[in-house]
């Protein structure tokens, strides 16, 4: 084992942001996903949607220049891009359920090889934190998950079947971990790109189901 930790949180967000295509409407969830709005996406025109009704926000506001009445899904003060719009909550989720979101990026505890994921409730927990995750998971065109590859105890988070209560079934298109970029295949995961310093063998040992490696596996470019 190399013992490499792989990508940082911002590097994971940056790699996911590179998936966004010109003209997409993208929803960013709490945590690492909100870091995608800080990524330089070159000339691509991406509209970031936040569940609280902000359509077209940009990066985190510089200190001292915050508008205290403007936040993203994580409650951070953000900026607006020219052309932004604000709607109320029911209309914001109308945007989501109406199928306008090209991709949603969320954190999770587990992703299964069939594309289920779990991110609202821990084992044995009473209640939980659903937020907008179930609406987004059920209705966005693509669901991108960013998560650490293993738990604090070293157990895989990419699993054959979620043993936590699921948020939605068969919806995950991409799972980005600190070890690499994966796609659920139904019988395992396909490793599309690998993080610098990691080996396929150590990823295989820490991933549920069959690991399929992409032809001509590329290393994830980091800046």
């Amino acid at each position, binding site marked *: 084992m190399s013992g490499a930790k792989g990508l940082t949180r911002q590097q994971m967000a940056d790699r996911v942001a590179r998936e966004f295509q010109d003209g997409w409407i993208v929803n960013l969830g*709490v*945590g690492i996903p909100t870091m995608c709005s800080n990524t330089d996406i070159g000339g691509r025109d991406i509209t970031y949607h*936040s*569940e*609280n*009704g*902000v359509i077209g926000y940009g990066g985190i506001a510089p200190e001292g220049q*915050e*508008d*205290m*009445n*403007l*936040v993203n899904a994580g*409650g*951070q*003060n953000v900026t*607006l891009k020219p052309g932004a719009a*604000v*709607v*109320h*909550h*029911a209309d*914001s*989720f109308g945007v*989501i*359920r109406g199928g306008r979101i090209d991709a949603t990026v969320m*954190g999770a505890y587990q992703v299964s090889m069939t594309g289920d994921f779990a*991110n609202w*409730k*821990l084992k044995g*927990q*009473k*209640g*939980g*934190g*659903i*937020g*907008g*995750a*179930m*609406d987004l998971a*059920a*209705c966005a065109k693509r669901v991108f998950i960013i998560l650490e590859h293993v738990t604090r105890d070293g157990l895989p988070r990419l699993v054959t079947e979620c043993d936590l*209560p*699921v*948020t*939605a*079934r068969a919806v995950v298109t991409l799972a980005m971990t600190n070890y690499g970029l994966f796609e659920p295949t139904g019988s395992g995961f396909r490793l599309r790109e690998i993080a610098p310093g990691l080996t396929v063998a150590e990823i295989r040992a820490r991933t549920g189901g069959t690991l399929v490696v992409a032809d001509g596996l590329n290393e994830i470019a980091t800046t």
Partner: protein
Amino acid sequence: MQTNKLRGSFQDAVADIPDGSTIAFGGFAMPGTPFNLIRALLRQGAKRLTLVANTTGGARQPRMPDIGMLVENGQVAKVICAFTAATRPTDVLPFTKHYEAGDVAAELVPQGTLAERLRAAGAGIPAFYTPTGVGTELAEGRETRMINGREYLLEYALPLDYAFIRARTADAAGNLRYHRSQRNFNPVMATAARITIAEIDEPVLPPGGIDPDDVHTPGIYVHRLVQVPPEPDGLWPARRQEKRR
């Protein structure tokens, strides 16, 4: 048009709220949260309340008046919300401890479903079908229906006795405008409530002070207005202090 909606104090605006009421609080994170009205309700002391809000309060400082405090004050029977716990397992909400101890009941609702149940209540729609939550624990034992080959979950409207909301601008007729993400749940809560009480950032304008084309919430939905005084008497959204990780 009724223009005597302006009240002199938050205490006055909430004084008649009876025990057992269903009250919604607007707000998403700090913006649009009626902190001053929530603080007045803590002092007013109504009990056995059912409270509706996105969250029960934040895990971060500074702590503002929230549902957790009303629970600690023994005023709450039930909460309907999208979070009974924080999204980060390491953040422990004050509310969560009381919920786990069984001091208060909770109904956990996906955020978009919560917004739509309020919208439906205000729009005369008793129930609706949504794809959200299908295949999850939340759908167990509930009514679903296949429509055009897809499964949907039946959800019911959520009518309110009172809505506490916050807006940037109001005129004396009760017409409201919100600033940026202050809007969030506030417009749909106003339409779902029998009585809506709004705390307003700016001095209330004479009727017509907001152009009719620019009104976000029409005054017919707004019954009481209170202007938020400057700090320290009034509570205003503050910069969030990031918790050290």
